[in-house]
């Protein structure tokens, strides 16, 4: 891990390493996560799930469960009063399976009872008669018109074609490969949990929930409950990580249904095992990619075919697919392209949002290709990337001009300038070897390799979506309070928002009000968007309040408000000597303003995949140094050097946290993290067998923040959450290739892929 130089400043304004307000509570265990909620007279809710990936439900008999003492309710599809289905993009996922179950773990019924153990017995007592069907688990097979369609909406969720420039262009050299990306899980530590309180009279409900987007949840829940949105109030519970897995509905509707049915508070929480069935995963993908280039390494054309396995329901598959195919070229200039992308429905678990959102898959392919191209042209990994590096004003294969700051060349050069780690010391600790505490390797078994990855990632939502954010700022008696519906999932908006208010308003005391649906939407905590979007909303609201403050002070002291500014914690007259502290100036008054931040408009893609579909872009380079035990196929990532295009660093400590965390997650995909499927069945739904990197697996991170403020961004800062996890994966795999000479076309790389 890298060390962070604490930027000691007097005030926790923008640019300071302000500490998380919830940090101590989280570290000492007193922070209240959603799963810690409790209420008098509450009942527990639990979910009955399908053991089969694909089956017809012949009958469901809930009577034996209802006969168990302590069981208050058993609900199935026929108990859903409103819309029977939900979904982020297409409402094709049933609240409860009724006719068919389409993936292992699909909810069939829920129960409410006085104790979790009673719930377990009730679930065991429900008799579901299934006619087990043969699951369709191969996307290539599923997308054929001749294959059985497993859902009324068909098996092809979306196909998008991209034709850009001259589809017949050719170069001197071609390189191609078939790449496979395994199913990664977000593996957040705070499990799905919620508590629902029914309104007396049963016409409304209040749901405390760990989610990424309160308002989107509310819309989907209200439709299923057949209640007006105003009668469904959501309050953000303590969220222990998200990474995309809390974008979709999981237990929200079930919990509310049980509360409304029983008239009592309902607590639901998933176990770790259930969590693997309760949320979407990263799309497994197969990507064919072919690069045409001139002898000097300049890319002429890229062809690609990408197939994303969407699993049983749509979730965000259409958007993930578009992200994948529109990032085919990576952060490189490319005038000609032909790309086809397919998101396909299968009887595998539904896949949706995860950090990197489709770009992770594309990046593994394009970066692997860049290394093939380098080899074919006799160039180094660095030179091939510099030769093709994208600049501001270049075009994507969608025809969209990259207007964002695009310091790709600088990312590469500054990463390249980071010193390489020392070679392994003679007295190196065996724990640092590949194999770690297993003591499998001796020094002479270990070969070092170096690899590169560079990426481009879109920020915010795309294809015409107006994912605005709302915030209210209230200033009174020297204290600013901020209200927004932004989900704090660990990313640090609760740290940043007060920093913004302190900088703009000259206050030190900032109070954060409850995040709930009693204010307008903040959009989702995803797509690297909250610093830009909710940050923009908080900044906007604070600036409006500051205008009101200047008006007030100007009137009180007979100064033209235009002459006033905030300096530290005072309002000062810029052309005079007048000075008053913000605390004094706001005694006895209350100034409150609400602001909505909208990003620029975007467009849909046309039938050739052309259109300005994205808002903005961020870039990053990664260089991985790995030690590989070639004979056993075990890997230790020694160092990740990275230079990331961040726009502006608003909190150095938070920023390095995002980079290190993302790198660990990308490392996971490179060498260990995979949900293993066997004909539609999940084989490893536990942390015993779904392996996350430990401290002994995490590399030393040496990071450079490239600060070229983004003109479009309200605070000059780009989103930094996703880029760290994207190109680090191909960089690590490239380093393993360099050490082993193996082609390694699949992630995660398994020991047997290296040594057998």
């Amino acid at each position, binding site marked *: 891990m890298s060390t962070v130089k604490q930027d000691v400043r007097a005030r926790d304004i923008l640019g300071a390493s302000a500490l998380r307000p919830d940090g101590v509570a989280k570290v000492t265990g007193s922070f209240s996560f959603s799963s810690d909620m409790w209420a008098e007279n509450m009942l527990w809710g639990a979910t009955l799930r399908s053991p089969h990936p694909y089956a017809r439900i012949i009958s469901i008999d809930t009577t034996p469960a209802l006969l168990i003492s302590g069981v208050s309710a058993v609900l199935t599809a026929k108990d859903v009063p409103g819309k029977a289905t939900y979904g982020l993009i297409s409402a094709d996922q049933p609240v409860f399976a009724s006719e068919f179950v389409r993936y292992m773990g699909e909810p069939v019924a829920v129960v409410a009872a006085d104790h979790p153990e009673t719930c*377990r017995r009730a679930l065991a007592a429900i008799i579901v008669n299934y006619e087990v069907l043969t699951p369709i688990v191969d996307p290539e097979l599923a997308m054929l018109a001749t294959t059985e369609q497993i859902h009324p909406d068909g098996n092809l969720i979306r196909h998008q074609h991209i034709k850009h420039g001259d589809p017949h262009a050719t170069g001197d050299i071609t390189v191609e490969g078939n790449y496979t990306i395994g199913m990664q899980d977000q593996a957040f530590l705070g499990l799905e949990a919620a508590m629902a309180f029914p309104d007396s009279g049963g016409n409304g409900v209040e749901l405390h929930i760990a989610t990424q987007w309160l308002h989107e949840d509310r819309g989907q829940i209200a439709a299923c409950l057949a209640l007006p949105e105003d009668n469904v109030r959501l309050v953000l519970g303590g969220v222990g990580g998200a990474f995309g897995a809390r974008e979709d509905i999981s237990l929200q509707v079930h919990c509310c249904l049980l509360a409304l049915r029983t008239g009592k508070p309902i607590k639901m929480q998933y*176990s770790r*095992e259930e969590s693997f069935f309760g949320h979407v995963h990263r799309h497994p993908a197969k990507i064919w990619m072919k690069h045409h280039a001139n002898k000097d390494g300049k890319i002429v054309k890229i062809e690609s075919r990408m197939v994303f396995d969407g699993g049983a329901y749509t979730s965000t598959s259409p958007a993930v697919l578009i992200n994948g195919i529109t990032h085919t070229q990576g952060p490189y200039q490319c005038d000609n392209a032909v790309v086809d992308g397919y998101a396909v429905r299968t009887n595998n678990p539904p896949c949706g949002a995860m950090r990197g959102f489709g770009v992770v898959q594309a990046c593994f392919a394009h970066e692997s290709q860049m290394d093939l191209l380098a080899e074919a042209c006799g160039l180094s990994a660095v030179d091939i990337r510099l030769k093709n590096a994208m600049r501001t004003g270049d075009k994507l294969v969608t025809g969209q001009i990259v207007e964002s700051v695009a310091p790709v060349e600088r990312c590469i050069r500054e990463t390249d300038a980071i010193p390489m780690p020392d070679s392994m010391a003679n007295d190196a600790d065996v*724990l640092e070897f*590949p*194999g*770690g*505490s*297993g*003591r*499998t*390797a*001796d020094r002479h*078994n270990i070969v070092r390799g170096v690899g590169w990855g560079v990426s481009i990632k879109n920020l915010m939502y795309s294809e015409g979506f107006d994912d605005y954010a709302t915030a209210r700022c209230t200033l009174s008696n020297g204290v600013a309070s901020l209200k927004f519906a932004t989900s704090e999932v660990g990313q640090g908006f609760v740290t940043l928002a007060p920093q913004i208010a302190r900088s703009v308003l000259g206050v030190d005391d900032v109070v954060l009000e409850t995040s709930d649906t009693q204010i307008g939407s903040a959009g989702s905590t995803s797509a690297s968007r909250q610093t830009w979007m909710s940050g923009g909303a908080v900044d906007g609201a604070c600036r409006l309040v500051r205008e009101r403050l200047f008006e007030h002070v100007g009137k009180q002291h007979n100064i033209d408000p235009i002459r006033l500014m905030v300096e530290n914690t005072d309002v000062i007259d810029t052309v005079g000597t007048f000075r008053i502290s913000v605390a004094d100036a706001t005694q006895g008054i209350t100034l409150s303003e609400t602001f909505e931040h909208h990003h620029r408009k975007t467009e849909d893609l046309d039938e050739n995949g052309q259109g300005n579909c994205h808002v903005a872009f961020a870039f990053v380079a990664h260089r991985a140094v790995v030690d590989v035990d070639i*004979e*056993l*196929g*075990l890997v*230790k990532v020694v160092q990740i050097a990275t230079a990331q295009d961040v726009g502006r660093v608003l909190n150095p400590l938070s920023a390095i946290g995002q980079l290190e965390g993302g790198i660990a997650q990308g490392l996971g995909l490179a*060498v*260990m993290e995979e949900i*293993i499927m*066997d004909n539609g069945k999940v*084989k*490893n739904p536990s942390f*015993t*067998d779904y*392996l996350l*990197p*430990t*401290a*002994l*697996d995490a590399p030393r991170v040496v990071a450079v923040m490239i600060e070229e403020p983004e003109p479009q961004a309200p605070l000059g800062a780009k989103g930094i959450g996703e880029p760290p996890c994207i190109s680090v994966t191909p960089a690590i795999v490239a380093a393993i290739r360099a050490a082993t000479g193996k082609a390694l076309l699949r992630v995660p790389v*398994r*020991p*047997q892929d290296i*040594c*057998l």
Partner: protein
Amino acid sequence: MTVAIPLSIREALDALSNTPDARLIQGGTDMMVEINFNHLKPHNMIALRRVQELRTWTKNADNTLTIGSGVPYQEMETGELKQLVPALAEAARTVGSPQIRAAGTLGGNLGTCSPAGDGLPVLFALDAIVHLQSADASRKLSIHDFMVGVKRNARNANEIITGVTVPLLDGWQGYAKVGVRNAMVISVASACLAIDKPTRSVRIALGAVGPTIIRCRDAEVWLSEQIDISASTAIDAAVAKEFGRRVALESKPIDDHRSTAEYRRHAVGVLAQRLITRASSS
């Protein structure tokens, strides 16, 4: 469910007599997972953690060491136990996290008898003796007779595993374990090699590559015919490699979601080759 918390072996055996169906629990690092997953629903439990007699170890006059079944792995990792049985210290270090090693015990490994139990290959390589005690009798059983299959052992329902005795060998010993991350990982394949110079014996035992821990008797015999294990000369690379190949042949691995049979067989061969090379160059 009842939970008895005896303070002595006698009290524990009394509790076991009173509730013959009781599940014995030491650190609980394995059994509590089973219970939490609802795979196991014991009516009665006997928690042995406060039985101090089980948490001690003794160096015996006959150059052996008896380790109580309640000694946590943490204690084997360092200090005198590490000096006495280095392979056990290395195996102990591979068990879970520091929290797990503070709770987990050899008694648990023996009680569960998973082929992936990290301590078991060491006990097999050292020809450990397992101590079992019931209300009216005690007996000693070779580890080779104790572990009879996947998660099956020869303990009678009225017996408590009180400890193991291992010889203090004169020679190099070591342990190596392959997992898919660098710590806190369940074994994909493991091996323990131990040399006893006075008897010119080399022993190698494999974990997670068969229904029980596997002692590679043929490879051991073959090796002792090739080299004088009591001499401190570096082993010929070709001999070490052939030893690895022979060890791999004696493994009986399966395919599962953690790895493939092919990789496991390959891995134990490599581990055997490396361990004997380490032994001969130490």
